């Protein structure tokens, strides 16, 4: 009797083992390149917007590379490049990216796209910032009203932008960490959920906000300030400094992100669902055009 149940277990086990990876998207692929695995370190904001779920399969189908997209904060992504733990980066913290080019950790850096940050908050808007045109002023009013504000607190691109705006006010909460200034330490999606639950203000990129809008009880209160521009670059890790990296794959990805077809896909992403694009393709421009 017990043998029968053991045999049954064994059969079930074999059936389970026989279930190979089925739902992976692999239609007729071109022949795989010599080193097909590519580690793409990107930010949680980029991942949460859903753009990569469209772009990465396109790249995989066109080139035969298998991309391991690891969405960590910008800080972690840059640190991965500095240890040679990634092949290519897609990040949005220009001020922190330049040192990596200077140190020789990264080789190529190409402008890909931009979107913008917006200040969101509860519809009740206790600090009365709706419609303000200058982000620094809005932050100053939040500090004065001691209204709840959720910071990413994770060294991400969004976090760095937020901190740079605070330093331009007279009341930077990072000097004394008052109770109304909350650091979530998490990605943008999770931080937006916290802000919605606490009916607090936060700085978010427009893409993640729109992608999660239906689950949130927050409204866009301040937008359009030039300082709120959020610029994305793709950077390849330098094979001269980090010989283990897949430079061919990294360069292929960088070129893919900046070619005309991909750029138009980027420009159309989100239009059907949200009525407006989430990202604006910029591969034909220079950093100077965007004020960097």
């Amino acid at each position, binding site marked *: 009797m*017990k043998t029968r149940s053991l045999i049954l277990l064994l059969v079930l086990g074999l059936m389970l083992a026989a*279930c190979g990876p*089925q*739902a992976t*998207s692999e239609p007729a692929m071109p022949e795989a390149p010599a080193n097909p695995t590519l580690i793409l370190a990107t930010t949680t904001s980029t991942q949460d917007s859903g753009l990569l*779920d469209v772009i990465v399969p396109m790249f995989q189908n066109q080139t035969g590379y298998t991309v391991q997209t690891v969405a960590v904060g910008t800080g972690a992504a840059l640190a991965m490049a500095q240890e040679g733990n990634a092949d290519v980066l897609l990040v949005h913290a220009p001020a922190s990216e330049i040192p990596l080019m200077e140190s020789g950790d990264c080789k190529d850096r190409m402008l890909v796209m931009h979107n913008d940050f917006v200040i969101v908050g509860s519809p009740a808007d206790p600090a009365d910032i709706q419609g303000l045109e200058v982000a620094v002023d809005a932050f100053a009013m939040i500090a004065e009203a001691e209204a709840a504000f959720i910071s990413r607190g994770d060294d991400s691109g969004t976090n760095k932008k937020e901190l740079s705006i605070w330093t331009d006010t007279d009341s930077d909460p990072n000097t004394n960490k008052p109770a109304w200034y909350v650091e979530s330490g998490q990605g943008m999606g999770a931080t937006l959920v916290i802000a919605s639950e606490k009916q607090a203000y936060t700085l978010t990129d427009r893409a993640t906000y729109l992608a*999660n809008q239906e*689950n949130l009880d927050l409204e866009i209160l301040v937008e359009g300030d030039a300082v709120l521009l959020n610029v994305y670059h793709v950077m390849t890790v330098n094979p001269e400094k*980090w010989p*283990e990296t897949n430079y061919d794959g990294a360069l292929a990805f960088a070129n893919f992100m900046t070619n005309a077809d991909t750029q138009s896909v980027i420009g159309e992403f989100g239009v059907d669902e949200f009525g407006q694009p989430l990202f604006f393709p910029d591969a034909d421009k220079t950093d100077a055009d965007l004020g960097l």
Partner: protein
Amino acid sequence: MVFDAEVFQITVLSLQISALATGLSLFIGLPLGTLLALGKFPGRSFLLSMVNTGMGLPPVVVGLFVAMMLWRSGPLGDLKLIYTPTAIIIAQVIISFPVVTGLTAAALQALDPRLRLQLYGLGASLVQMIWMLWKEARLPLLAALMAGFGSVISEVGASMMVGGNIRYQTRVLTTAIVLETGKGNFDIAIALGILLLTITFLINWALTWIQQRSAR
């Protein structure tokens, strides 16, 4: 939604990884636990206390340690195992084999010591004796198996760190739940949670049934 192809793929991957990890930790833990229970050698009780401490290892710490080993910058980086299901299996084996080992040792030590003497007296070889002891202790040993499986099917910290939650490659049920929660899709997260609980329940139901039949 439950029969969505991607959810199916995630579920199958979770089961493959955790079943393999549990199997491997049984392969390591059963003999090791037997050795610790029946053997007499210097350092035995020290090893036993290490194993018992291992039962409480925080999975996320195990994940961090294994990730540091498997990153390109780490000593085992050349194996290119980071962000693969194999990496998750390695981490899960480290998490579950102390559970299986410790509970096996306790199960065997709980047996009547006169049983061993009796088996020796009847002329059993070492292999025969160990087999008889295992059969005698099959109830707590099956419990050890269920505990080992439970410790890995439910963990998320190690899977996140060494697997990276990469879509179609290393996304498992637990990491998918974290992702959906972070996006605010609570309904999907709860549905995945119920799916995970149901599967774990079904597996443990089958194992319990086997265990209780042996109780006759």
